[in-house]
């Protein structure tokens, strides 16, 4: 979606209302699919089964066994609804082809609109269920609530996210707002201005760059107001916004901040809760868009007439702010591209979150177990990172190693999983 908006900017063209609404409906469906998958398949096992439970059970199969097969069916059904809507609007759910400079390649029919509307209604109900499940399993458990709000999973940083003209969360369009660790707005910028506010630090030991807020500066891997490290994510979006633009999501937004002690919330594990608040918003917003008759207007594209040159497109991807910046020649052939994806924005913070969790969990006299490894991994998993998913590699498991030293830096113990030669 960021590339659609970047190419609009490159060709100096503004899509007609139906084109924008179709894109936003597609994107809400994308959020529904992505947030359901992350919560049920990746986050819920840690909470429903327990962070130190048997890893053989700590997966979606264990979750379904515990909460019931019927719930599993609902998970699959609503993910499939979201995928179907994406494919119907844009040709394919993954690698969609419907977005083109100036709008969309085809309109939808009234029959499709009605179908999407019914699916969106069902997604709203499923979002209510998912939030209730989170309340029953996680919030009602004092230990889990303490885990979420505890120091080892807390990091005080700046936050970045897109808001609409009323400062409400918006996934598709608006301005990018940044708040400081106290929740105070420090800047709002348009997509085309991003290079004035974001810079990238490099380290010799990583080929991924470390973005930071240019005006605060890179001060190393440190927390707080003096450090330019910021985070993007579902929680970041809630932290930067003044609220949600739909009623049920707004009520959940208020509950989250009331429970966790007001804005901003710095608890990394609360990303999961924020993800469910956004699942509700995406479902409600999808329903709104599908009840808007203009969405079936056949005029879904403005034909570009200007000479293409350069443009920036920013959207909120499920994992956070996504920036696409293209330069082309006069024939529209790309000559330069810069992308800053959510995982890159969060990369400095991920290192710090993992380190803090490890330091907080590994104490003198504490047995270091697989459960501990998982609890360190939870600090990383909350970001839902898009590091290379090794889909064609056997075994496709996450390599992880923890080395424990004593106070003289003598290695005491090394615990690893799934390392291959060269790791």
């Amino acid at each position, binding site marked *: 979606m960021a590339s659609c908006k970047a190419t609009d900017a490159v060709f100096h063209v503004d899509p007609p209302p139906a084109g924008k609404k179709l894109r936003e409906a597609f994107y809400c469906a994308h959020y529904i699919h992505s947030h359901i*998958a992350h919560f049920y*398949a*990746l986050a819920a*096992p840690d909470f429903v089964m327990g962070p130190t439970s048997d*890893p*053989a059970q*700590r*997966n*979606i*199969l264990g979750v*379904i066994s515990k909460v019931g*097969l019927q719930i*599993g*069916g609902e998970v*699959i059904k609503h*993910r*499939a609804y979201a*995928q179907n809507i994406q494919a119907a609007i844009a040709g*394919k*759910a*993954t*690698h969609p082809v419907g977005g083109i400079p100036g709008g969309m390649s085809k309109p939808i029919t009234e029959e499709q609109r009605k179908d999407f509307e019914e699916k969106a209604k069902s997604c709203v109900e499923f979002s209510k269920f998912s939030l209730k499940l989170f309340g029953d399993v996680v919030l009602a458990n004092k230990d889990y609530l303490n885990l979420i709000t505890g120091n080892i999973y807390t990091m005080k940083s700046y936050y970045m996210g897109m808001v609409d003209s009323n400062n409400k969360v918006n996934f598709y369009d608006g301005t990018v707002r940044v708040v400081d660790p106290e929740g105070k707005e420090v800047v709002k910028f348009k997509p085309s201005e991003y290079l004035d506010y974001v810079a990238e630090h490099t380290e010799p030991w990583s080929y991924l760059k470390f973005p930071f807020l240019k005006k605060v500066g890179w001060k190393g891997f440190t927390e707080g107001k003096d450090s330019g490290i910021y985070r993007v994510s579902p929680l970041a979006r809630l932290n930067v916004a003044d609220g949600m633009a739909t009623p049920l999501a707004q009520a959940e937004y208020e509950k989250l901040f009331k429970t966790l002690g007001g804005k901003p919330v710095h608890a990394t594990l609360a990303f999961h809760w924020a993800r469910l608040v956004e699942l509700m918003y995406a479902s409600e917003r999808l329903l709104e868009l599908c009840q808007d008759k203009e969405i079936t207007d056949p005029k879904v594209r403005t034909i570009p007439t200007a000479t293409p040159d350069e443009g920036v497109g920013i959207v909120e991807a499920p994992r956070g702010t996504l920036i696409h910046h293209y330069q082309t020649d006069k024939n529209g052939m790309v000559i330069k591209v810069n992308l800053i994806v959510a995982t890159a924005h969060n990369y400095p913070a991920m290192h710090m979150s993992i380190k803090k969790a490890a330091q907080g969990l590994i104490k003198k006299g504490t047995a270091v177990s697989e459960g501990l490894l998982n609890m360190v*991994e939870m600090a*990383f*998993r909350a970001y*839902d*990172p*898009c*590091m290379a*998913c*090794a*889909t*064609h*590699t*056997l*075994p*496709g*498991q*996450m390599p992880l190693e923890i080395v424990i030293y004593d106070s003289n830096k003598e290695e005491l113990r090394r615990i690893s999983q799934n390392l*291959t030669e060269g790791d």
Partner: protein
Amino acid sequence: MKTLILGLGNPILSDDGVGNRIAQELEGKLSQRQGVTVQETSMSGLSLIDLLAGYDKAIIVDAIQTAEGKPGEIYRLSPDAFNNTRHASSPHDVNFATALELGNRLGMALPKQIVVYAIEAADTSTFSEKCTPEVAKAIPICVKMIIKELNGNHLTKVADGSKRLSDS
């Protein structure tokens, strides 16, 4: 009997698209064949079970990278071969074995028989709509193997997932 041939991959990432290429070849050859559907997809994890539902048999074609594999080698695997990736493998989605087991536990109408043809890839990170030479050579061989499979005449048992295969 309804059979799905599903080519997996990203068609613009060199050898990652070998499953797509094979599906494209097969679509041309099998367009008149009753009961056989050929499809390409870039989806993975939970999305795959949506695609598989409703078929009696599925033949999945994808690129693979193994520790000592030689580019262009073709493996005929059963889903059991992926069991060791079942637990917490990807930070981003569930893996194939988990998705299949989930679908089965939920009572979805998944194929009774699933066969995976995996082609050892050399390059899955360079933007290209063509496979590397060794992998490209494997495409017609794999197409022949799958047609034999459809005719009930495959080369080894499904369970023999670890054995490397080459067509003579």
